[in-house]
């Protein structure tokens, strides 16, 4: 019993002794502050993306913070406004060029800066495109560079080149002429349109009256490489059969929707009787 007590006493004293020894051995005073510390291998890196508000909110910009290894943020929006939010939003006073600066820092006081130039521009309401038809009136020297024989833009591999007539015409000095054999074809592609927009194509035609005949104008979506593709690409088509007079032009308004096309093409063919066609124009429909 006594020996156990002794043992207990001893074991209680021993830790005391050890602690004393440790304390005296500790030399806090001469410990270097940088001793045992590591370099920060992941310092803050500032980065952000931004997006413009829609409609009437075009002056409101939302900023998305993409910084890494940072805890604190300071936004300078370049218009005098600032923020310390993580993700931020700013309403600009108006159009202009602003330099947005994001300063990202961590709790060690290391900072990193990222800047981007933001061009604040009121978005324009996109206007529908009106396609420009070359040699639409079949006049000489009417190409943009002042050259052309009135039908250069209408040549193709689908049929012979169309002829040009000087009488009768609907406007200007010339019109297109399709002989009765029906083997001449006029085709022009690459006419740029706005998709899903209503247009009206207007033109004039006249047919000789000896034999039954017709002249057909077809508006095609995109471009074709073979006449077999016509049926699948047709947006609108009109077959003119008015043979009341060989010299009086008949007006045709052909409405069409451009659908899923950024370009259209125009194809003109005839059959049975000599035909003339003149003055093609195109405008927005309703």
């Amino acid at each position, binding site marked *: 019993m006594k020996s156990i007590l002794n043992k207990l006493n001893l074991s209680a004293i021993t830790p005391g002794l050890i602690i004393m020894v440790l304390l005296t051995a500790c030399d806090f005073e001469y410990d270097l502050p940088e001793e045992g510390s590591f370099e920060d291998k992941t310092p803050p890196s500032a*980065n952000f*993306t931004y*997006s413009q508000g*829609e*409609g009437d909110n075009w002056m409101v910009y*939302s*900023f*998305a*913070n*993409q*910084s*890494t290894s940072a805890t604190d943020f300071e936004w300078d929006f370049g218009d005098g406004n600032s923020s310390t939010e*993580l*993700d931020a939003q700013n309403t600009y006073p108006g159009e202009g060029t602003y330099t947005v600066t994001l300063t990202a820092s961590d709790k060690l006081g290391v900072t990193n800066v990222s800047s981007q130039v933001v061009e604040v521009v009121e978005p324009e309401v*996109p206007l529908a495109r009106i396609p420009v038809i070359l040699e639409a009136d079949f006049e000489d020297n009417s190409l943009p560079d002042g050259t052309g024989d009135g039908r250069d833009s209408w040549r193709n591999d689908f049929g012979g080149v169309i002829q040009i007539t000087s009488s009768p015409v609907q406007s200007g000095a010339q019109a297109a002429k399709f002989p009765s054999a029906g083997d001449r074809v006029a085709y022009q592609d690459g006419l740029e349109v706005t*998709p*899903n*927009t209503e247009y009206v194509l207007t033109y004039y035609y006249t047919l000789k009256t000896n034999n039954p005949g017709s002249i057909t104008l077809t508006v095609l979506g995109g471009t074709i490489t073979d006449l077999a593709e016509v049926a699948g690409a047709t947006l609108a088509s009109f077959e003119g059969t008015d043979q009341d007079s060989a010299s009086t032009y008949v007006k045709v308004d052909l409405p069409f*929707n451009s*659908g*899923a*096309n*950024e370009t259209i093409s125009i194809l003109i063919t005839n059959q049975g009787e000599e035909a003339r066609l003149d003055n093609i124009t195109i405008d927005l429909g309703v």
Partner: protein
Amino acid sequence: MKQYTYIGVALFLAVVTLSCDEDFLQPVPESAVSSVGYFSNDEEIETGVIGIYDALQGENSTNLNDKRGVQIEFYVTEMRSDNTRTKSQEGEAAQFESYTITANNGLVENYYRSSYNTIYRANLVLDNLANASESAAERFEGEAKFARAYSYFNLVRLYGEIPLIDKVIGPLDKEAAFTKASSAAIYELIVSDLETAVANLENGEINRASKAAAQALLAKVHLTLGNYTQAQTLLESVMNSGFSLESNFNDIFYNEGNNEVIFAIGYNPGVETDSQDFSAEFMNGVGRTSGVNYVTDEARAILDEKGGNRTQYSYRQDPSQLTQYQVTKYLPNGEDGGSDGKTFDSDATLSGNDWIVLRYADVLLMHVEAIMAGGPETSAAAALNSFQQVRNRAGLTDPVTSITKQDLLDERRVELAFENQRFFDLLRFGVAQETLSALSDANGYSFSATDLLLPIPQREINLSNGLLEQNPGY
């Protein structure tokens, strides 16, 4: 003595050289299949193609070491949107709704790994196409590339820039496995894969890739990239392929093989290897969780306001917990769970409901989106027509004369609620940050802009040995 030994060796070598051909040293195993020497003809390669669909299906399992695939997709998509949340805000599942996802989240890691498993199996088929007959090779290529593009499209939208693997790689090919590709390069592969699939495939399949499925998916890719005219052309082609809206909204989900579904991941009930458990997880304590993908107040409000007759088939009050609301689009094997909503005759954790990836209503609404072309509204006749078809089916027959971007986003939300579309829609419409910030503020969550991307799984970062960089904010 020494001399004899040398002669012995020489004789032995001579014998070996004579009798040795490839089959002898590398015998093809007879009782098991290995990828070496396999995939040598159409029949064998087709099993590889089936393997791709098996990967898409994911494993029905309660173990996150198994590749769960699309069965856990709702966690990383719908539950990160304003449509759903967990029932009881518990565990790593609740990280999604509160935007506190960590790089160690097992579901994030599992979805990533599952997607790359699909990609691996697709690459395996593509690498062996030379052994297929010419006619079969086209179809195999189309199917494999469809699956690969589908996986990459999901990955790039969820994780951002990720490694781009377009052939089978080995375990030592660290550089390929862990080097991030630019999102432009990833989208380039997605577009070219889907263009091949469109060219090579025919229509007529629902649970396997078809031409229309590839066209619809490619259209969605083009909408994401802002190529509206290309999207519209593809969608109009799908619209001319004979699909139609199912007249009763509920039948889309329970009348399998209906004419509205363009592509669905197929499941069969009762068989562990071929069934799914997400239907059970959506219920109250029927699956492994106490209930996930529960409907938010926000989603209920808009469904009640704008859903028409779709609302009753989209969610219900949880019969066992009246303050909570459950998704009813994928009720286990079509059973309603009785009076407590959780008593099923069949095994709900082995459900057979197909997961619908693409359906015709989605195509019609994408058609509107393509025509709107990033603008604030449209009143083009073709757009109104597509929009009206979807609304008419929902019993909302008042004629629409113009559609704003918000109208379209709302219509997509109520039509496609709980079908894992909402998060991607918010991203594509450019309103994810503002919508989820507002949701977060209202519910006390901690959303920030970097939460729009998931973290690269920490396991991948660790394995990459410094090659793979974590996404910002994690």
